[in-house]
């Protein structure tokens, strides 16, 4: 990456330099290198005037490029070559660091220690810390935690004089939201929930006493959590239950509430007998939690409906890491996956690795069910999991110590194209991924202001 100034510079230092301040670090270094080399050239060459012409005519000594680049400006093989190599190596370094930044610059890396700006509620600060430490993780958990925290914020809020709650509350909430986003990028679920909350705040009655208005908002938040998440999960369980038969081998990836654990445990308690293959992957290794949930089903007699029930037989579980997937997919009869969000083109944005599982399942003609509440639907279209992603902080998930040339990346999500998905299980029924956009319309959200 040579700047014009560098390119035009004669081997012996040229007259015009851009001011030192306006140069980048790499450029300054390059200049330094060049000046050093030029000084050297003047010292060694008896006729510095036509050194440039000589350098061109002289065949370059055959030194391995790597050695020269490693030795930086060591003047072992004549001043001309060492100079050109020094510049080249400086170029390379600047180039490679720039390039790596360019490719991954948009990956949202959570900033360390979000500094609280403005009037942030303590419960929001705590939540932000929990987000950034991945103590609260998963689309549903984050959404519920956010809404619950907002309930506290709303209850602690008093409308300033000469203002109305419906107009002012949102300006109070938005720095809280900004603070949460600075801890971890906002999930689609949180975005949808916050959008709904905004709508309800702006629609609240001006004549209502303040406490009543706040209670009403909290009631509406509770309703949202109940209707769109809790009840939706129950309905999804029942729909998914119909697709699980005795003797099935269910393959699932990582842990997604509600899909994996709840659906499977629900089906198991309804007397379906099937086995489960759990495929897991770093960095989060969420499958272990699912494994824990599935294997810890009760082993004692239970009293239900006035009669003693025998303990359920344990669910046969197989656990493997992602590279073992091609060997295991042949045994599976159904793949059940979860989603972080669904986009109107039918693409599923989910935990990294989901796309691989869906791809292998498609190749082996194993049906892929994606369990997802409709509040995770997004109006946008997504074509590539690379464009919008998030990195897990490497200090939480250490893999290898970074060295000058080594960077450790832990992308958290990937995008599964709709072609790999057989059906999406929502509380509105089982729909093909191509119908996501019509569900958006049916719920009357697509025309809402952001």
């Amino acid at each position, binding site marked *: 990456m040579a700047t014009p100034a560098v390119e035009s510079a004669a081997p012996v230092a040229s007259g015009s330099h851009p001011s030192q301040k306006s140069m980048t670090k790499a450029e300054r270094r390059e200049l330094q290198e060049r000046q050093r080399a030029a000084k050297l050239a003047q010292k060694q060459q008896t006729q510095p005037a036509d050194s440039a012409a000589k350098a061109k005519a002289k065949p370059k000594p055959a030194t391995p490029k790597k050695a020269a680049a490693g030795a930086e400006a060591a003047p072992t093989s004549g001043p001309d070559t060492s100079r050109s190599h020094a510049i080249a190596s400086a170029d390379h370094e600047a180039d490679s660091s720039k390039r790596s930044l360019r490719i991954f610059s948009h990956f949202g890396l959570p900033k360390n220690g979000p500094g609280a700006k403005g009037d942030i509620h303590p419960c929001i600060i705590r939540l932000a810390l929990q987000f950034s430490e991945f103590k609260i993780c998963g689309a549903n958990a984050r959404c519920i935690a956010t809404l619950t925290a907002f309930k506290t914020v709303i209850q602690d809020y008093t409308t300033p004089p000469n203002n109305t709650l419906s107009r002012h509350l949102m300006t109070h909430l938005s720095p809280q939201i900004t603070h949460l986003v600075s801890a971890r990028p906002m999930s689609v679920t949180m975005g949808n929930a916050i959008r709904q909350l905004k709508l309800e705040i702006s629609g609240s009655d001006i004549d209502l006493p303040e406490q009543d208005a706040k209670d009403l908002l909290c009631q509406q938040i509770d309703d949202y959590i109940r209707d769109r998440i809790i009840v939706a999960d129950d309905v999804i369980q029942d729909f998914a239950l119909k697709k699980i038969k005795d003797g099935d081998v269910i393959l699932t990836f990582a842990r997604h509430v509600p899909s994996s654990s709840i659906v499977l445990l629900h089906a198991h308690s309804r007397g379906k007998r099937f086995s489960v293959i759990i495929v897991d992957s770093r960095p989060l290794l969420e499958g272990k939690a699912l494994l824990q949930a599935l294997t810890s089903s009760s082993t004692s007699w239970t009293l239900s409906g006035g009669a003693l029930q025998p303990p359920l037989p344990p669910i046969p*579980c197989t656990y*493997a*890491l992602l590279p073992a997937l*091609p060997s295991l997919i042949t045994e599976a009869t159904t793949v059940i996956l979860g989603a972080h969000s669904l986009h109107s083109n039918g693409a599923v944005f989910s935990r990294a690795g989901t796309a691989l599982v869906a791809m292998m399942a498609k190749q082996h003609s194993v049906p892929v069910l994606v369990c997802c509440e409709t509040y995770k639907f997004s109006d946008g279209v997504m074509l590539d999991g690379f464009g919008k992603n998030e990195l897990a902080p490497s200090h939480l998930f250490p*893999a290898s110590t970074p060295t000058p040339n*080594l*960077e450790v990346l832990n*992308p958290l999500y990937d995008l599964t194209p709709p072609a790999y998905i057989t059906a999406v299980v929502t509380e509105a029924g089982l729909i093909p991924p191509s119908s996501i956009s019509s569900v958006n319309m049916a719920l009357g959200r697509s025309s809402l202001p952001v």
Partner: protein
Amino acid sequence: MEQPQNLRVVETLAWKLRRRQLVGSRATALETLVVLRQVISKSRFSNIEQLVSIIRGVGRRLVEAQPKEHSVGNTVRKVLHHIREEYHTATGGSTTTTSPGFSISKFVMLGQPRKQTALPKTESKNTIKENDPDDPDAFARSLKPVLMEAIQDVFDELETVYDNVGKNAQNHIHSDEIIMTLGMSKTVESFLISAAHHRNYTVMVLETAPTYGGREMSQALSAAGISTFLVPDSSIYGLMSRVNKVILGTHAILANGGMFAIAGSLLAATAAHVHSTPVVVCAGQFKLTPSWNLYHEYGALDFGDPSQVLGFEEGALVDKVDVVNPFYDYVPPNLVDAYITNDGDHPPTSIYRLIKETYDDEDNEL
């Protein structure tokens, strides 16, 4: 005389293989070669059949000890091939029944187009006496030096395999490309490093759980000055759209052009296939294996240590679940675009021909 397959050196190597004290295709190939050299130099034989059966016996013993290290069998086959070749040269090709003139049926029957071109010599040198009743060792005495030379050739090939694989690296990797690789493979490492002498590019190394060879690989590559990213296996699909080439190592190349490679390779190759990203495999020719794998579900039917997947720190879980840790993947030939070997680049469709040229058909079963 002691049975050659029971020789001390053979036994030692067999047990080393069996206990997995010796792993890795190149290391096992080198050790096998050392043992074969000792066996040949010590054994007594008075005709070619005896020699071949001695080598075969040793080969069978070693392959039975560890059938998954394919390069052991391959090395034995290669040595047998060289022995026959040297023998034919020494006897002036009197034993070859090839007659000049091509016909389809002959071509098919022989299955070895290369031999067709070797015209039988009209005069036999007759310097080697087989089955000489007066001096039973005469045959061995006269043949052994040539055989040692032939084995030295195989040695040299193994010694230089990394250099030769990396020879054309800059033709395959271009400036500013993003390369994806996985696992720890010395061949791939030397290939990438040799390309880095000429090109400035980026490598994404997959961690390759549960062995995490990718971590080692990423350290090696970054130490060589290559801009390296270490990513978890789960992001294969997400990152594939930005990757220009997938470069893999392999454990064994099979006769149909498919290969056994470290678990995770099939995922990467499949994801590359759906993204139309080329998949290039670097391997020495000692990995060419005259066998097939069409029906095995679990790669090469080899399993790693399950505690790497779910360790005993998860004590409560350990006895409730099945933990699977297959060691290899079988990558079918349609997912591989090219094999870069120490002897040129080959498409998977021509692997069968290389195998026919490198080994003799009768040795496929040792």
